[in-house]
């Protein structure tokens, strides 16, 4: 009888308890740190990283990569000529050095990409954050405005804007024309993410201890929703570079006096039958740059998505 009331007590070992091995010196798990560690394992990260740094250097210091001035020494005697000593890629129809034009055209393409990206990120984050966080009629209004801009393919919209501003074509106008219609995708992605984060326990906890709505948005919600925006940013940079070239190809891009890859490709199409390489070289520069940014976008997306990480 007395036995039944006794509690069962397991054998107790006097030795120290061994739990699953935990290394105390490990950094605490954190999305950005994990992503960084994951990205560094992938060769694509290094390939695209080196390419991006190289393109940026070319854009900032073109003089380091060529000592031929792009337009000074154009001689019609060299028109559509093949490679020569000091002119590795040959000459354009006007007898200008192709390699030098590509080097000096880099900054145009990259500037358009950067300006568009900064613009779409600012507009998209503002619209997406306000719509997602404040909800109700603010969301309804902002989302419909976004729909309006989203429903026009942005290259077609840019065609109209560039036709309207045919007198004022420069890097800023073309960037604005592209960016003005490209921001809704950023806004949509951020809005969806904020709707998810908004209902987390830590947001409720902040509300409970009386933190103001604005502070909650800036300190807690936004930093936790920004990951997909970063992925979109990398890809939109690539898309903007292509958009600039496409507009130049269509004839509503930058004026022909501005050096840009798009203009070079556009001008080379006349000589496609006789001298196709004039078209190939700037296209190659454009494609490699775009590829670098798209690859970086893929690496960042995979690194920031824990699901993709575990399945790989």
């Amino acid at each position, binding site marked *: 009888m007395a036995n039944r009331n006794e509690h069962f007590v397991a054998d107790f070992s006097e030795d120290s308890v061994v739990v699953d091995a935990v290394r105390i010196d490990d950094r605490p798990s954190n999305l950005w740190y994990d992503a960084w560690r994951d990205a560094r394992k992938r060769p694509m990260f290094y390939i695209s990283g080196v390419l991006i740094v190289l393109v940026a250097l070319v854009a900032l210091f073109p003089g380091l990569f060529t000592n031929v001035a792009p337009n000074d020494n154009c001689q019609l005697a060299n028109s559509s000529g093949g490679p020569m000593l000091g002119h590795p890629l040959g000459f354009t129809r006007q007898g200008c050095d192709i390699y030098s034009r590509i080097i000096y055209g880099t900054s145009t393409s990259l500037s358009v990409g950067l300006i568009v990206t900064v613009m779409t990120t600012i507009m998209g984050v503002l619209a997406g954050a306000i719509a997602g966080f404040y909800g109700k009629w603010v969301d309804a209004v902002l989302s419909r405005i976004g729909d309006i801009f989203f429903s026009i393919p942005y290259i077609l919209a840019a065609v109209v804007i560039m036709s309207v501003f*045919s007198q004022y074509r420069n890097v800023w106008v073309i960037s604005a024309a592209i960016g003005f219609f490209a921001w809704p995708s950023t806004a949509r992605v951020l809005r969806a993410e904020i709707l998810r984060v908004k209902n987390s326990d830590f947001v409720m906890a902040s509300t409970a201890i009386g933190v103001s709505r604005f502070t909650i948005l800036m300190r807690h919600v936004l930093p936790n929703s920004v990951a997909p925006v970063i992925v979109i940013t990398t890809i939109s940079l690539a898309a903007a570079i292509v958009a600039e070239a*496409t507009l130049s*190809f269509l004839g509503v891009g930058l004026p022909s006096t501005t050096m840009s890859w798009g203009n070079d490709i556009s001008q080379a199409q006349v000589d496609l039958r006789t001298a196709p390489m004039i078209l190939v070289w700037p296209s190659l520069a*454009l494609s490699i740059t775009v*590829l670098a940014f798209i690859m970086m976008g893929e690496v960042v997306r995979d690194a920031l998505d824990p699901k993709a990480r575990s399945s790989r």
Partner: protein
Amino acid sequence: MSGYILRRILQAIPVFFGTTLLIYFMVFAMPGDPIVALFGDKGVNPATAAILRHQYHLDQPFIMQYLIYIGGIFHGDFGTSFSGQPVGNILAQTFPVTIRLSMIAVAVEMVVGIGVGLVAGLRKGKWFDATSLAVSLILISVPIFVIGFVLQYIFAIKLGWAKATVSGDAPFNELILPGIVLASISIAYIVRLTRASVIDTASQDFVRTAYSKGLSRNRVVRVHILRNSLIPVVTYLSIDFGVLLVGATVTEGIFNVPGVGRTLYQAIIRGEGPTVVSFVTVMVLIYLAVNLLTDLLYAALDPRIRYGK
């Protein structure tokens, strides 16, 4: 379901008016006086100018001009091009060609994109998968006009397998090369989408069940995996439509295809602002309608999606 359709159409109304108003406003802001331009080098006759201004409603305030324009669209009047031809007529001539071109492009996208994506997804991590992923990345990075020029140079100019420029009545066989070029961007996305979808479906329980009840691999892939993987691909086609519109402008410009895109391309080159705008407006309206239709079709295709309230 009918409630969803109604709500979706109601949502499309502000988008329709917002979009057209936006484009119309941009034209309104366009520098230069079109009536003065009509007189060319001759001096402007004020009386004739006034009559013309009245005829084109240019003496009305902006919002009235816009309403008259919208009213015209509902009567099937899409405005008049620079040369005096109604945009509606030009559309009627050029649209069949562009539809033919797009059909070839979509067919190529579906066959190549889904085929490659399916094989890559079933052999995840093997060399075919790796190669198709790498090739699709490169395809995404090369702008469509570069692909167009390169294929035109190789297949039309060097090899002579196809015509470099399409003839006036745009027969089917001459549209194959432009169709492949037009398809090239979307193929990459469809391959990646199909691949991801196939990988996802292949790990589902019902696929394991299908195998364990003794079905052949061929039948499991065809009936169980492929069919269930196609839903996201079908949805993509609606997004794809915008890509097709822009792509058609470039492709038709390169291959001289007498379609909607080339008309737009030439209007841009010649600086015919009003024609450009009326064409872009029509394209955007078609785009809106197609998007609405695909959303509704999507609901009909996938019985799991119930649009309640």
